[in-house]
């Protein structure tokens, strides 16, 4: 599903590499944590996977798409195959929960009759069917993240990237989100979670890739959170 080969990335004007010779191979259906402190290169990695940035060198392949050969006009098609959730949810504040999820389908031009069917189904999946008329500010952080998750999943992506999905949540809500991610993964979606939530990483016993200063220092199946120092 994800294949990074000798990937290096240096921010324009930067002296050091944000990612330095990173090699990762993630198979379809895997659940992977990417951990590391701030400045370890986690965000750069997510941005590269979303094709928001180009690597300075190296190859990236996601879902069979070679990023080096991908034409600019085909980027939207690639992104439709990748769902993404963020620490700060990034919901549209002036739209209801229903509209936020429907928005993801509208932008990929899904016919209205499908939107009317799929959005309620997705809201049911994340346990928010009864709050479809609410606005984001009327929901708790955990609920907002579930809406973001519904939005990321409504287009049935093959890969879900979650960038610090529990960063703004209390432990209870964090576990609810992680359980949802696990469910989604069980149904076949590859899930990559960038986090520094030690407790969750240690409890879930999934594959853990640890980054430090842009380099992979550990990649373990059923691993735990590794202290970098």
């Amino acid at each position, binding site marked *: 599903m994800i294949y990074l080969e000798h990937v290096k990335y240096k921010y324009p004007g930067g002296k050091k590499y944000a990612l330095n010779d990173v090699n990762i191979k993630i198979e379809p259906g895997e659940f992977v944590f990417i951990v590391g402190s701030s400045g370890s290169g986690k965000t750069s990695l997510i941005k590269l996977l979303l094709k928001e940035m180009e690597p300075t060198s190296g190859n990236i392949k996601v879902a069979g798409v070679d990023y080096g050969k991908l034409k600019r006009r085909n980027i939207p098609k690639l992104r439709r195959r990748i769902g993404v959730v963020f620490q700060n949810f*990034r919901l549209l504040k002036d739209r209801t929960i229903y509209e936020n999820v429907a928005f993801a389908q*509208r932008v990929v*031009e899904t*016919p*209205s009759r499908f939107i009317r069917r799929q959005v309620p189904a997705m809201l049911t999946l994340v346990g928010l069917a009864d709050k479809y008329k609410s606005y984001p500010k009327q929901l708790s952080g955990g609920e907002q993240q579930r809406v973001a998750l519904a939005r990321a999943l409504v287009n049935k992506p093959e890969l879900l990237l979650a960038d610090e999905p529990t960063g703004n949540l209390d432990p209870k809500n964090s576990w609810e989100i992680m359980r949802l991610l696990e469910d989604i993964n069980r149904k076949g979606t590859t899930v990559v979670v960038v986090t520094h939530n030690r407790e969750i990483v240690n409890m879930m016993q999934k594959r853990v890739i640890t980054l430090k200063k842009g380099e992979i220092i550990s990649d373990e199946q059923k691993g735990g959170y590794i202290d970098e120092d």
Partner: protein
Amino acid sequence: MRISSFLYSVRQGLKNIRRNLLFSLASVGTIVSCLFLFGIFYCIIVNFRSAMNDLKNTVTISVFFNEGISDENINLIGEQIRLRDEVNTMDFISAEEAWDSYARKKYADNYDEAMASFAGDNPLKNSASYKITMKDLSNQAEFVNYLKSLDGVRKVKTSEVTADGIQALSSVVGYASIGIIAILLLVSIFLINNTITIGITVRKEEIAIMKLIGATNFFVRAPFIVEGIVIGLVGSLIPLALVWLLYDHVVSYVVGRFNVISNNFAFVPIKEMFSVLIPISAAIGIGLGLIGSILTTRKHLKV
């Protein structure tokens, strides 16, 4: 693009206008003033051109023939002249018609008496002529030289000063109008640019999410293009209505008040005027909106 997506873009475009109402109104206002002035200039120019054409038809060239020339030769000269491209209209005025017309003016009060006193004698018997109007007065001097060179032509009468004056005035009005309108058009594009930039800034987060979800460039840009088109369209309809009302009132006022003008000059009818002005104004308005929004989205939405 699907119909539902198209409708979605239209709704978002209208929403953008509502969100940035003040800037949208500023853009509409600029286009209104631009197209209002355009409409006024257009009406003036069209009427001016129409007056010019009327005048052109009064600026005639008269070709007189040598004494004793035969009718056959006059016809021959006529055929030669008629073949020339410069000729707009050409009428033959016989010596009798020339005398009759002169007598009617000169002896308006006792025409019959005067005619009787000449007892069929025509004092203007060598005054048969061709009266010619030209399609384009700028070639008059050259054409007159040609006429003078024809065998059997005694004299060619022209009114060159008038022709040159009309031509010069027409050019000055034309260039001045183009200059002013061009400046206004540029100002309009600049303001639409600003309005759309603000719209993009306000919707930055939404656009970023759209891009991450996989919206195509066109889908992201479409609402802003709709916004530009609507601003342009509204900006073109308001001045059309204003110019219509103004033209209608001014024409009625002038015709009713100033007999000198109404006797010598016919205003171009309002419907004839607007059959051209409506599509031109709408096209300029929509075009401005479209160009403004495309330029801005290209600059700010590198998706």
